[in-house]
């Protein structure tokens, strides 16, 4: 690996080219195009350097090469030394252009798809951003789909992503600050927040944590998330990631901070609270009453997904007196001849289901049919008919499995599934008593968490009455005239009265 020498640009063109080639290890995809401008009497050699496929060649031909070559006629009668100024001022038809005098910065720009222009006899060159490569178009979100609401999702290109956000929030107060993280990947990481809404402590903390990252490459937002989260010793996510620009815009307007990472459609949001993992973007697009009911359903599903297998184990092995007699007899009939204790039965089924789920994500699409057939047969029928698993356990496992996907954020749904096993173990060993000990332990743990200084369980614990408008309830837009006090302290009022017309 060539050492970083911090070389100044030389006057000799060939020396400069040679140095750039040396620093890029003589890679074959470094394109060097030499042109001759000016009159025949005093020709000046100019070299364009760029990486094949990183820069848009069409644009280079049109806006750099063509003007340079045609302008050579009008160079007559001018001083040779005027050339660089002339090029910048009136020849090169490009927007962003900057000078450089260090070969290192030239090489770095090359790696990002810029065109480097070096003029023979001058120590200054130009860097022209001409990045252009094949990329995915803005498409519908695949993980956070909605029935009603915008159907745009972020892409892998950070510039597109920023544009998607700015197109929603057309405010000059929307700040974007960039960092480059990753010694090798040189990944562009942008932080966005609303000046005057976001807490200064929070975004400065974001910068502080981002700046302290030392890593060779950032390939996905998950890398950054792990480095900046408050608590690593937890299964609960303390940073939300989303692929929805509307969700990001809404959060920015609440006073939260978004972190965009080049190369991934997943944008991070801080601070993130427990209750926010149960809020879907769509909650705000449907009528308030519908959203409130659906949100209630989600919390109910959370209860099912964490506790139902544990409750089933606890009640059928310790507290049979809690089951109504008819149900007890029917459950007992199903268990006749089942060789395993209820706990083992539950673990087998839950594990089988988790394997199927993972296989469903990981398998090549072409074999999907095979997996689903095997899954249905194994889980649904064969296990029961063979008498290895009781039918009621299948019902319990299925309802839990479905319920965990009601939670809008996948990270949280994984956390819920892990805690389910924790509760099942406690239920098998200690019955209901164990489950309640487990609930207390999890609640204590949750309340101890912080996300960028904000208590994870707020506004439930610490309780804030005003913020209950958007926790389990989703009150009407008319009543949502204040920002959540956890983030929006600086400017608590969105507007005093959103609906000013009077009913006549």
């Amino acid at each position: 690996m060539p050492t970083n020498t911090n070389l100044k640009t030389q006057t000799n063109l060939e020396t400069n080219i040679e140095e750039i080639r040396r620093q890029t290890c003589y890679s074959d995809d470094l394109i060097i195009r030499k042109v001759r401008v000016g009159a025949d009497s005093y020709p000046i050699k100019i070299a364009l350097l760029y990486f094949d496929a990183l820069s848009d060649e069409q644009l280079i031909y049109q806006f750099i090469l063509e003007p340079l070559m045609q302008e050579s006629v009008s160079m007559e009668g001018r001083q040779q030394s005027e050339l660089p100024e002339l090029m910048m001022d009136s020849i090169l038809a490009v927007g962003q252009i900057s000078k450089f005098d260090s070969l290192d910065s030239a090489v770095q720009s090359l790696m990002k798809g810029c065109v480097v222009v070096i003029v023979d006899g001058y120590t200054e060159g130009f860097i022209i951003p001409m990045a252009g490569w094949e990329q995915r178009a803005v498409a519908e979100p695949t993980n956070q789909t909605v029935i009603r609401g915008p159907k745009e999702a972020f892409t892998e290109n950070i510039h597109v992503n920023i544009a998607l956000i700015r197109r929603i929030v057309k405010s000059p107060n929307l700040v974007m600050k960039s960092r480059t993280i990753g010694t090798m990947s040189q990944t562009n990481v942008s932080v966005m927040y609303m000046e005057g809404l976001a807490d200064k402590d929070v975004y400065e903390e974001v910068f502080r944590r981002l700046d302290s990252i030392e890593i060779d490459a950032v390939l996905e937002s998950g890398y950054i998330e792990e480095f900046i989260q408050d608590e690593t010793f937890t299964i609960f996510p303390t940073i939300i990631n989303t692929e929805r620009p509307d969700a990001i815009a809404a959060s920015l307007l609440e006073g939260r901070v978004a972190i965009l990472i080049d190369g991934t459609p997943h944008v991070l949001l801080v601070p993130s609270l427990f209750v926010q993992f149960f809020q879907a973007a769509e909650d705000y697009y449907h009528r308030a009453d519908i959203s409130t009911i659906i949100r209630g359903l989600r919390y109910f599903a959370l209860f099912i997904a964490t506790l139902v297998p544990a409750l089933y184990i606890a009640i059928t092995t310790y507290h049979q007196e809690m089951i109504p007699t008819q149900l007890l007899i029917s459950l007992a009939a199903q268990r006749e001849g089942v060789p395993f204790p209820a706990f083992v039965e539950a673990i087998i089924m839950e594990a089988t289901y988790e394997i199927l789920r993972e296989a469903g994500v990981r398998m090549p699409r072409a074999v999907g049919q095979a997996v689903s057939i095997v899954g249905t047969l194994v889980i649904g029928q064969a296990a029961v008919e063979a008498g290895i698993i009781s039918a009621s356990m299948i019902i319990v496992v299925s309802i839990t499995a479905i319920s965990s996907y009601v939670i809008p954020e996948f990270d949280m749904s994984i956390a819920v599934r892990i805690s389910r096993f924790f509760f099942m173990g406690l239920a098998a060993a200690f019955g209901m008593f164990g489950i309640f000990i487990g609930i207390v332990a999890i609640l204590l743990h949750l309340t101890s968490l912080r996300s960028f200084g904000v208590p994870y369980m707020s506004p439930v614990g610490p309780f804030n009455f005003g913020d209950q408008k958007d926790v389990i309830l989703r009150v009407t837009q008319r009543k949502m005239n204040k920002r959540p006090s956890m983030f929006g302290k600086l400017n608590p009022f969105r507007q005093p009265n959103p609906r000013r017309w009077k009913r006549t």
Partner: protein
Amino acid sequence: MKVSMKRCAVMLIVVFLLLPLTGCWDRRELNELAIAVGLGIDKVGERYRVTAQVVQPSEVATSKGSAGYSTPVTTYRASGVTIFEAIRKMTTISPRKIYAAHLRVVVIGEELAREGIAEALDLLSRDYELRMDFYVIVAKETKAEDLLELLTPLDKIPASKIYNSIQVSEKAWAPVSAVTLDMFIRDYESKGKNPVLSGIKATGNEEKGKQKSNVEKLQPDARLRNNGLAVFRYDKLIGWLSEEQSKGYNYIVNRVKSTVGHVPCPSGDGNIALEIIHSKSRMKTEVRNGKPKLTVDLRVEENVGEVMCQADLTEKSVIDALEREAEQSLRDIIERTIKTGQEKFHCDFFGFGEALHRSNLRVWKQMENDWEEHFVDASITVNAKVVIKRTGTVDNSFIVDKER
């Protein structure tokens, strides 16, 4: 990073140390339980003979296709000096331990009931496994074990048949009283009230009733029938109330939810059935000149349910006459019932003593030790008020003049 590793390790150690320490000791899988739904207690000599009616779940749950392999319940019998011993002894013949939390009924043989049942019921009130929601009943003229071995149609589990039929009959027909163990114990301990229990009787051929063929027939060989109330003095059975007296008893203690009675037609050539839809009664006991006066205030709402004669129900006077008639018949029933208590049993199982206790503590203190003597001498007043609310979907019956 270092801190979290340490915490992780500590937590793992704690969890793994906890698991072998405790837990699981009282764990029982559903298929390790013998779910007892009925418990019969008899006395043979000096030993108690206990019969447990245990569900065979796979025979009861309908989804399994093994129907017909065996009976829906089976019984285990064992005897011992104490009931607890007898129940535990059942493990010598049963593959599973008796699990009594879902007990529906405890049946007591009439013989034991006449000897006294307090000793037999202590286990049931003491054991943590039992709930208090089962009914205590007396097997009329038979042993408890014979009653628990009859198979019943419609409800596959005989004990739950008994439970449900007591419940339904109490709600819709009245001469039955669903008495749970705690109610019995409370009445037993009270000086102002003696307990009653419901009675169940087996009718038909008992031997054939114990076979599966009993439920395969349209008309079973043997049936279980709710049969009036058993009157106790303290814990000893002293006699039975007839159906009418049982109904009267429930009117007095305000336990009638709905029932049907009849009064003769005003024209005198048929009957009119009246459905009681609401009944509210209050007992009062006053003492005048050292003699107690028992008062029952009864307010009943009724519907005309069936008219078997020509009566003009659109006339208010006819309805009024019916109401008076119904009041008279209620008064008669109640007075006869109290008289039975005074003259036949010499025993206050209604709770007039408690009523006195509530209203006049000073007098009660003087009378409580020989209350039964005072009760027997007491005068009776019944104030019945009947209101007829509705006459069904027609006014007058389609029955025309019978002379035609």
